[in-house]
């Protein structure tokens, strides 16, 4: 029974293993960037999920404001928390890559700046939450902040790197709308993206269930 419900977790373990092996052994090195480009199989999915997490957080914040149901706040804050972890991972993997290719861990490239600001926003989100005593008020005010912050994000991700020159390789979808990867790289990359997304979902569910459990112990239902 237990094994039945959790079958996908075992599949995920196998899948992630294959992705890791594929990233190092199967995919060829990229033109111009050499072996270091292999980090893209891990760096891009984490950055992608950091953004997705903040989208989820903003959507549940809107839902909270509409319904005042604390369950939505649990989803919003949990997604922000997992998103924070993934944006830290994206920052660290990016920084390691930068140290090899640009010979410096940190040099305020617009894309480094963007992800760092993202980190700041969500650190501020949790600072705000910890300063409010009443649960409903905490949920309401942090939902408003989450929505404002999310609307700020496109300004960093899209506008600022376009105004100021960046050395960062083209994002996944570049101006020409074409993917500059060969077939084997693409295969590993999209598998990695999908596997990471599933992993993210699993982490988010664990967090949400844990908070809900704490909540249901305290909550009186109407």
């Amino acid at each position, binding site marked *: 029974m237990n094994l039945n419900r959790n079958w996908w977790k075992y599949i995920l373990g196998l899948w992630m293993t294959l992705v890791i092996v594929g990233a190092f052994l199967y995919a060829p090195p990229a033109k111009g960037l050499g072996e270091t480009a292999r980090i893209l199989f891990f760096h891009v999915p984490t950055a992608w999920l950091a953004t997705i997490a903040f989208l989820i957080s903003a959507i549940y914040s809107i839902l909270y404001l509409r319904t*005042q149901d*604390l369950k939505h706040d649990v989803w919003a804050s949990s997604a922000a928390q997992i998103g924070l972890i993934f944006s830290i991972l994206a920052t660290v993997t990016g920084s390691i890559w930068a140290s090899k290719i640009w010979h410096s861990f940190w040099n305020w490239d617009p894309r480094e700046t963007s992800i760092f600001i993202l980190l700041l926003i969500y650190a501020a989100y949790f600072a705000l939450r910890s300063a409010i005593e*009443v*649960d*409903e008020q905490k949920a309401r005010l942090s939902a408003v902040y989450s929505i404002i912050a999310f609307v700020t994000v496109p300004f960093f991700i899209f506008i600022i790197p376009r105004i100021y020159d960046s050395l960062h390789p083209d994002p996944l979808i570049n101006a020409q709308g074409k993917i500059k990867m060969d077939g084997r790289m693409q295969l590993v990359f999209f598998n990695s993206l999908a596997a990471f997304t599933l992993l993210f979902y699993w982490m988010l569910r664990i967090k949400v269930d844990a908070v809900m459990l704490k*909540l249901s112990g*305290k*909550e*009186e239902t*109407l």
Partner: protein
Amino acid sequence: MFILKVFNILESDKLNGVHMFEIHADQIAQKFNQRIIFRDISFKIKSGHSLVFLGPNGSGKTTLVRVICQLIRPTKGKVRFFRNDEEIKQDQIYPFLGLVGPYLQLYNSLTALENYEFFAKIRRQPVDVNHFKKLMGRMGLAGREMDELRTYSSGMLHRVKYVMALIHQPEILILDEPTSNLDEKGAEIVYEIMEEQRRSKILIVATNEPEEIKFGEEQIRLAS
């Protein structure tokens, strides 16, 4: 042309005459830190009637008053206002509401007159100094119009709150602990105001004083 005129007269007659106001509270419930303060509160009240909220400390009288005045949104349920059976939109209720409560403060660094000017203007009332002086006189505060409120005693502050709540002759007057902080004379004036209000308008009082409970034709008892 002629028919139109008759219609206009009828319309204006209705507008100039007595308005019927009504409050409907439908199944309101409020949670605070996930604890239920109260639930399933429903009532209807019309102009010319009065209502009292009773209950021990911590039973949520003040919270209920604040929900009705739209200072907080209820976790569940709805409070609606009607004028002549027509629903008043949420952002148009302000000119009809008056509230006095210990948690509503006025601007302490402004004088009573300056406070009056602000509250009259924001409620779209003409600024009429004579009317204001009359109200101040009625509350026993004549001569203090030009003093900043921070020089007032707490009892006097409570009296000024009545002045500010009454400048627009509100159709709906809500009083939370109406006579706390007031001396005997002050309480008497307040009872007079309550008597007047419930005669043709709506009066809602949250209290535990036996003297004041008498003013409510109907009671809502909140359990702790």
